């Protein structure tokens, strides 16, 4: 049942991200709900389940992006693994630590996405690169409490 609800949550977040309302887009940036979901799962579930649903979130995101290589699937699974290792050394019980982890994870994911575009030979103005990097990460982190609540409701 819990797994079905987690799958349903991925579908809902995917739909929400695809049809994100225009008035909630700031500086052409919208939050990466699936990334926040994939990372947050590590805080609330055992590593194996979190990793599987993290990969599924990444796959769902990659399916609707025009790029063919599964960047997000790899990135989400790697981030889940790294946070799992970090959680063994640092306490991730308080919300502030979780927010900081989400911010860093989002930042890293955006750097990978941005550098991927540059590596492919395409040019992005520095202003737009930094805007996407900073605003996207902060926006994703700002919405993370809602995702935490959603996962808490599903897992309890």
């Amino acid at each position, binding site marked *: 049942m819990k797994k079905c609800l987690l799958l349903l949550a991925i579908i809902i977040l995917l739909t929400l991200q695809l049809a*994100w309302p225009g008035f909630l887009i700031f500086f*052409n940036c919208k939050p990466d709900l699936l990334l926040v979901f994939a990372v947050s799962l590590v805080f609330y579930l055992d590593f194996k389940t979190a990793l599987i649903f993290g990969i599924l979130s990444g796959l769902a995101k990659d399916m609707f*992006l025009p790029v063919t290589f599964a960047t997000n699937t790899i990135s989400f699974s790697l981030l889940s693994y790294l946070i799992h290792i970090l959680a063994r050394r640092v306490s991730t019980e308080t919300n502030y630590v979780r927010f900081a982890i989400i911010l860093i994870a989002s930042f890293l994911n955006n750097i990978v996405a941005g550098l*991927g575009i540059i590596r492919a030979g395409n*040019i992005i103005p520095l202003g737009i690169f930094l805007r*996407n990097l900073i605003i996207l990460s902060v926006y994703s982190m700002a919405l993370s409490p809602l995702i935490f609540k959603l996962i808490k409701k599903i897992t309890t």
Partner: protein
Amino acid sequence: MFKLPRKTLINFALVACLILLVSNSLSCFKNSLPLTIRPGLSLISLLKRELRGFIFYHRNMIKAEESDKQIEALRANLFDLREVYQENIRLKNLLSFKQKSPLCLIPARVIGRSLDSWTSCVIIDKGRSSGIKSGMVVINNQGLIGRIAESTDNISKILLINDPSQGISSIVQRSRQEGLVNGTLGANLIMRYLPEDAQVAVGDTIVTSELSHIYPKGLLIGKVVNVGCEFSGLNRYAIIRPAVDLNSIEEVMVIIP
């Protein structure tokens, strides 16, 4: 037959003439009388209104509540109608464009937008089952939108012209100066590889060139809003404002080659 005596008729006519004469000659009287009684009349009507409001307070309250509900319902209807009206205008424009255009076009509706901010794409409700294949060009009545990046049976992904991976061979319509238009992920596009003495100025129209193998010749891309010199100093660039507002496209046309 009913007949009035002549004397009575004459008397009546005389009285009428007298009244007309008095009322016409004494216009000050005609104006001043209503002015004199107006405050009194206003006061009476005000008192009557207040008294009626006091007596029928409960009935008025219920009526007001009903009216409020009706206003809300009508407002919602008006909002829906405004949406339908705007959609109607858009579809009419698209239809007239389709009828005028010599190209073979398939209309489609945008159902989703890009998942992240590192790519610029939209998802449309038509796919391979409607004859749409990857690589096909997408336009609307305002200009070029992009090309199909991927197509499944029922949906297709359109890579918009402001995606950084887009490179469109284009020309300045006025001077026929060639260049390459790239997306920047922002609201504007950039036309690069313009020589130092390029004939390009603010306000020039940019269209696709015949050198492009993907895009048909002559599709409107946008207008030049700024011209600058590249860091190396060897080339110039032009900033282009797309003809289509890429953030608010709702209906598109796919060109079938």
